[in-house]
């Protein structure tokens, strides 16, 4: 972030002579300077800024900045180990700052940008469209997102309930989030009445 700010400030400083004295571009050196100041540096700054913004879109703070997502953010604080999102967030099983993105993106090669394009559609709906009364996933949650971290862990492999269903779980035939398994995730319907951790988060 510091390097980005320095790059942006240097870009502005180098543009100033062209604004004040555009005649400096009459000679070759001046034209090269103008090309670097107007094209090269701003392009570098633009790409660096874009990268910073894309990284920010992965944060919980960003996701929950829209009112419609605030209960989902609150569900990270539910003080109950049965609640999957809260358990993962509170015990740092996913990075706390980017918890939403850790689970709600695809781990495929183009997953990051696909998720971001979908996010742009969400911005459109938030401000210009009608927010649906019930928010649900575009497609059933893929076990791949769980197995990406848990797939080779001993606790997953040796868990007794998993042994008979291992093939189906790995093939996404039996969802990790099925009722009776790990079916309680965000529970936004109940979040206002549940105990939270840390206690001051209300």
């Amino acid at each position, binding site marked *: *972030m510091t390097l*980005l*700010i320095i790059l*942006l400030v240097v*870009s*502005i400083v180098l*543009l*100033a002579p*062209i*604004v004040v004295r*555009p*005649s400096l*571009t*009459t000679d070759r050196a001046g*034209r090269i300077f*103008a*090309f670097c*100041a*107007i*094209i090269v540096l*701003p*392009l570098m*700054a*633009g790409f660096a*800024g*874009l990268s*910073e*913004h894309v990284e*920010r*879109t992965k*944060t919980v*703070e*960003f996701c929950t*900045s*829209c009112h419609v997502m605030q209960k989902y953010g609150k569900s990270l604080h539910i003080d109950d180990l049965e609640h999957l999102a809260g358990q993962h967030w509170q015990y740092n099983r996913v990075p706390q700052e980017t918890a939403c993105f850790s689970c709600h993106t695809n781990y495929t090669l183009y997953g990051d940008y696909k998720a971001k394009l979908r*996010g742009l559609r*969400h*911005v459109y709906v*938030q401000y210009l469209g009608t927010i649906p009364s019930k928010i649900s996933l575009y497609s059933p949650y893929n076990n791949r997102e769980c197995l990406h971290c848990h797939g080779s862990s001993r606790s997953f492999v040796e868990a007794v309930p998993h042994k008979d269903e291992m093939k189906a779980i790995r093939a996404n035939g039996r969802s990790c989030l099925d009722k009776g398994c790990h079916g309680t995730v965000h529970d936004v319907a109940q979040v206002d009445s549940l105990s939270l951790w840390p206690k001051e988060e209300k």
Partner: protein
Amino acid sequence: MSEQALEVRLRASALLVMVGIIVEIASLTWRHPTAFIVFVGVGGLFMAAGMTSFLWSIVSRGGK
């Protein structure tokens, strides 16, 4: 293109890019989807306009 017209265009190009960069700096001060939209939709447009104007002025100059 006369030298004076060229200088006006160069000044305008640099100013447009400068405004775009200032908008980009401003968009970094808050974390919200609108910050990204402002960065791309406003800052990016200003910068693109400035760069396009500069490149056009180079081409119009006829290699002098």
